[in-house]
């Protein structure tokens, strides 16, 4: 029983991170129909910029409270990533908005390589130890089940950010503009919506979420390097497709679900297949689920509900 609950917690924590990253994919896809493959690398930039900031602060003001330090580092990372998101859209994607779909997709892969290489030049090839400013000493809420404060923070922060994003999209003026642009950006611009600004805003918000996800990811595992964005990026993309790409609720559901499936998959695949498959197949478990969902619901779990696209 402890094992079952523990696997649930493991899945929930990693799933929350996936969900947060998946939102960035799905928002951009909802509006532009573009899969921004560089999104995972924005996460990496966020984590490493925050690391650099923390190192700087530790050198300058060693007595600073860890939480304040983390908040400052997070803020710097968010700002840098927002600028990065804006620049990426302005330089790489805007010119290709009316190009065939393949062109921006390939460009996105190129931007991903570019970001990784630049990060490698700046921060080197080595793995970096990530300061764990929120405690990682495990608590035991139930006998035999361990949760660390950083994991609790991740789940709560992700939930709060997701609710905030839903409110932003559904309750604010800019949110309405985003929804209008998603439905039809030509018509939206005829109605007086500055679609260029809305699209740029979408990229910036997505990048900010990625920055938070990056800092959380690195803080949880205590490790960061220039290639760290690739795997979570790929998983989050899968999560977005699973939930129905372009659909905000779907990205959240897909992210959490993927986390849980992975965790339970790795934990129980051996029992479920009577020892035929072992944990070296843990990744295919997630993709089997994805395949099944797409066979029966080609638009993902929640589908591409156009009115909700943003």
């Amino acid at each position: 029983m402890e094992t079952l609950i523990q696997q649930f917690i493991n899945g929930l924590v990693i799933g929350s991170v996936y969900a947060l990253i998946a939102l960035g994919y799905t928002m951009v896809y909802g509006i532009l129909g573009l899969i921004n493959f560089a999104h995972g690398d924005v996460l990496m930039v966020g984590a490493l910029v925050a690391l650099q900031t923390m190192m700087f602060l530790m050198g300058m003001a060693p007595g600073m409270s860890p939480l304040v330090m983390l908040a400052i580092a997070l803020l710097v990372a968010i700002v840098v990533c927002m600028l990065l998101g804006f620049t990426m859209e302005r330089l790489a994607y805007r010119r290709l908005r009316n190009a065939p779909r393949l062109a921006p997709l390939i460009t996105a892969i190129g931007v991903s390589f570019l970001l990784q290489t630049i990060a490698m030049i700046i921060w080197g090839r080595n793995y970096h130890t990530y300061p764990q400013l929120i405690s990682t000493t495990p608590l035991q809420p139930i006998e035999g089940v361990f949760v660390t404060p950083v994991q609790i923070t991740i789940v709560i922060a992700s939930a709060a950010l997701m609710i905030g994003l839903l409110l932003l999209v559904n309750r604010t003026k800019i949110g309405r503009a985003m929804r209008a642009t998603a439905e039809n950006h030509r018509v939206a611009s005829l109605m007086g919506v500055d679609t260029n600004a809305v699209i740029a805003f979408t990229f910036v918000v997505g990048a900010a979420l990625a920055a938070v996800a990056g800092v959380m990811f690195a803080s949880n595992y205590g490790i960061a390097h220039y290639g760290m964005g690739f795997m979570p990026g790929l998983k989050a993309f899968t999560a977005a497709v699973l939930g129905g790409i372009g659909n905000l609720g779907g990205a959240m559901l897909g992210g959490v679900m993927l986390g849980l499936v992975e965790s339970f998959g790795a934990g129980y695949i051996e029992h479920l297949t009577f020892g035929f498959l072992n944990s070296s197949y843990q990744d295919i478990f997630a993709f089997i689920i994805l395949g099944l969902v797409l066979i029966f619901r080609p638009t993902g779990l929640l589908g591409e509900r156009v009115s909700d696209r943003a």
Partner: protein
Amino acid sequence: MKQTVVAVAVMSIGLGAAQAQETVVKLGSAAPLTGTIAHLGKDLENGTRLAIETINAQGVSIGGKKVKLELVGEDDQADPRTGTTVAQRLVDAGVKGVVGHLNSGTSIPASRIYDQGGIPQISPASTNPKLTLQNFKGVFRTIANDVQQGGALGNFAVKSLGAKKVAIIDDRTAYGQGLADETEKAVKAAGAQVVAREFTTDKATDFNAILTKIRAASPDVIFFGGMDAQAGPMLRQLKQLGVNAKFLTGDGGCSPEMIKLAGDAMTATTYCSMAGLPLDKMPGGAAFRDQYKKRFGGEVQLYAPYAYDATMAIVKAMEKAGSPEPSKYLPELKKSNFAGVTGNVSFDDKGDIKEGAVTIYSFKDGNWVPM
């Protein structure tokens, strides 16, 4: 290249004229002398150099003729392609035997060239089992391979740590999987139970799911076959999941990097292994250190004693066979059996050193300390 050969030839003619009764026998050394591990490569070459100078000072005769040994040192830059180039250069220079290379990645492709040239090669540093599994007649090593390392790890877990239940994880790379399989065999042979066998990749950072599964099997010892970049976060996650089992890993995790990445999750019950012995524990270690220091003015890094023994093995075989020709002395080299600096030097039928030593390190005062 041609020029080098001519120069060497002229040099040997010159020497031959000066000391008419002496024959010159050339031995090759190949190791990275530039790049990030240049200090280890130079150390290897120095070991060979020291052996050659010692033998020359004592005087040696092969087949009734007085012989002077000569070292031909090459830089393989720890690069597989450069490795094959310098191997060819050594073959062309007419060396009668080679001590090298350092990295398994360069030793393995170079070994084909030595085999084609009919020249015996002894690596004092490469541990990948594949090196001696290519059915080349003249490939040897004086350091323990990863099979021996896995055996030592398994024995250590069961016999020294008293493990009854062992969990084994590997990263599905040739290295990690190979080491984990050998460790598993040794654990079972020593009478303990392998309660979990889990897998990850060499790119993963989240191990919570497999570690939770392992926790349910309550092992005494957890072994990981893989590199420090995974072993570090894995150890942290074990701590976060409240697992108190002892943690054991191979040479991939036996690095200062591991200590950095695992942070405060490193405890006195974290262990790792490395092929070879620390100098202090070698039978001829103390004397070798003095001799090395006197000649080169520095400390032995790592592989010098193994290179020294490798060189000795070649020369002793030449003496016994009464010929410096590889085809003549190779059978004697296979039968090598003498007390070297690092221990007894004798090879099994594949060319691996028999009873190659493996040292287990434990974490103490912020460092890996040999046990």
